[in-house]
């Protein structure tokens, strides 16, 4: 998705009111752009809090800022800057992070950020986009980057292989069934895409987590007793949000990242296995849940 991010930004950079701010990462990928537009594509340095407030100042004068750095340094470290300077002041800006959850598995816990979605969800009017693959990032970014709201884009190393006709603010029903409804977010679809067709379940695919497509979710979830939510970060508020919009009592099951520090290194697959977030286990649990009467 990082490569696509660079290509997408290049496509829109003809607009004179777009500024790219790199937190000393991705500098190589944007080299040509920085050479061509030295004033508008800048490596601001390793000073994240100030970068966010600085970007808000740009937005105040009608410039569309795109801020790019590693998720924990952008979201966790700068939560207050994003909340006050963009959220409260209702300024537009695009926050594009890399290092989703434990993508930087070998670098250790300081570079993990499974908390980003819950933090961003707590900023009123923040748009949250979790593209499932590069194609989706491009579509979603192009359709939202200048829509006057602050928007968080979560770039993930893991991508799903689907080509779904996604749209900002809309969920997709990619499979219909009777025994349960699976709500899966962005790249997490890759954990079930190889087997899910075998099972008699609805699959709702979400790439925009905020604002949530309540209409479609309500329609589908009203005809189901069990909802299985699959999202690869700390469990979000989807359970509550779905509970609040459906007209019946639903049993929820969650696959998310447990709230604990991951102190191991290795590959992301090894971490997946360690925390119980992998294809085989998810399939096993889905079978068990479908056959259960509880």
């Amino acid at each position: 998705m990082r490569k696509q991010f660079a290509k997408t930004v290049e496509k829109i950079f003809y607009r004179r009111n777009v500024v790219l701010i790199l937190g000393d990462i991705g500098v190589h990928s944007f080299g040509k752009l920085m050479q061509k537009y030295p004033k508008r594509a800048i490596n601001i340095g390793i000073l994240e809090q100030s970068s966010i407030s600085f970007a808000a100042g740009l937005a105040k004068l009608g410039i569309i800022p795109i801020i790019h750095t590693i998720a924990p340094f952008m979201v966790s470290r700068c939560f207050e800057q994003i909340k006050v300077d963009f959220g409260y002041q209702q300024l537009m800006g695009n926050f594009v992070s890399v290092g989703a959850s434990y993508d930087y598995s070998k670098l250790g816990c300081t570079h993990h950020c499974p908390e980003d979605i819950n933090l961003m969800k707590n900023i009123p009017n923040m748009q949250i986009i979790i593209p499932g693959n590069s194609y989706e990032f491009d579509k979603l970014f192009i359709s939202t980057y200048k829509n006057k709201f602050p928007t968080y884009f979560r770039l993930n190393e893991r991508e799903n292989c689907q080509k779904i006709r996604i749209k900002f603010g809309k969920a997709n029903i990619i499979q219909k069934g009777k025994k349960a409804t699976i709500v899966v977010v962005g790249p997490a679809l890759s954990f079930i895409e190889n087997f899910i067709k075998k099972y008699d379940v609805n699959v709702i695919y979400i790439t925009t987590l905020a604002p949530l497509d309540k209409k479609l979710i309500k329609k589908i979830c009203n005809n189901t007793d069990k909802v299985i939510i699959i999202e690869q970060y700390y469990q979000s508020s989807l359970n509550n949000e779905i509970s609040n919009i459906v007209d019946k009592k639903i049993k929820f099951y969650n696959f998310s990242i447990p709230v604990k520090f991951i102190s191991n290194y290795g590959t992301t697959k090894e971490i997946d296995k360690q925390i119980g977030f992998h294809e085989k286990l998810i399939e096993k649990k889905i079978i068990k849940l479908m056959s259960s009467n509880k």
Partner: protein
Amino acid sequence: MSKKINILNQLRYRICELAFVAQEGHVPSSLSILDIVYVLYNNFVNLESIKKNSLLKENIILSKGHGCMAQYVVLEEKKILKKKELNTFAQFNSKFGGHPDSKKILGIDASTGSLGHGFPFAAGIAYAKKIKKIKSKVYCIIGDGECNEGTIWETSLIASHHKLNNLICLLDNNLSSKRAIDLKNLSKKFSSFGWHTIEINGHSNTELIKAINTKNKKPLMIICNTIKGNGIDFMEKNPNEWHHKKIEKSDLIKIKEKLL
């Protein structure tokens, strides 16, 4: 000059009166910047462009947002704000709170209060003006206590690196920081961060005007040595106690006798 002093005393009293009615407000911190704010609005901004909220206007960002009563009363004096509205200060439906709100108040360009946000925000505006080739300047008021924040130093690096000579920062050096961290030689510090630095008496209109008019290729840092609670002797003598203390009726009577 005497007329100006008279106006400033009236503004000092207005701050205290509002704070008394609302039983809220950081009065000494507002009084230490009052001269700075007054000089900026009186000498360096086009009031019409502020009234029109023009993109071309000068911006005054109060990064030390708790001093906002100074900005409120000067905006009122300059007929940008209405007296009737400002009288509602800190009430439930008021536009005017203990920290300024850019979404509610004409002439306020940044919602500040959490220290260390306004300065990088101002640098962003200054950078945007360079891109858009807008000539007007960006003025930012920070406090010495605020200089404990890392973003002040981060932004100093950004502004000097990008040669933001349209950014003028006025540092209200009212010695708030002293009880926590002794900042020692601030001029030296900001100079070493690449700013053109001038140190003045922040209560002298003449010195303020001269310093703000300084032309330079670097961003300009004016260290304004000020007195917290300036103009009200019992606040000047005990600035820490009065930092966020409520003004009683008896205090207001004393203040009125001294100022008006």
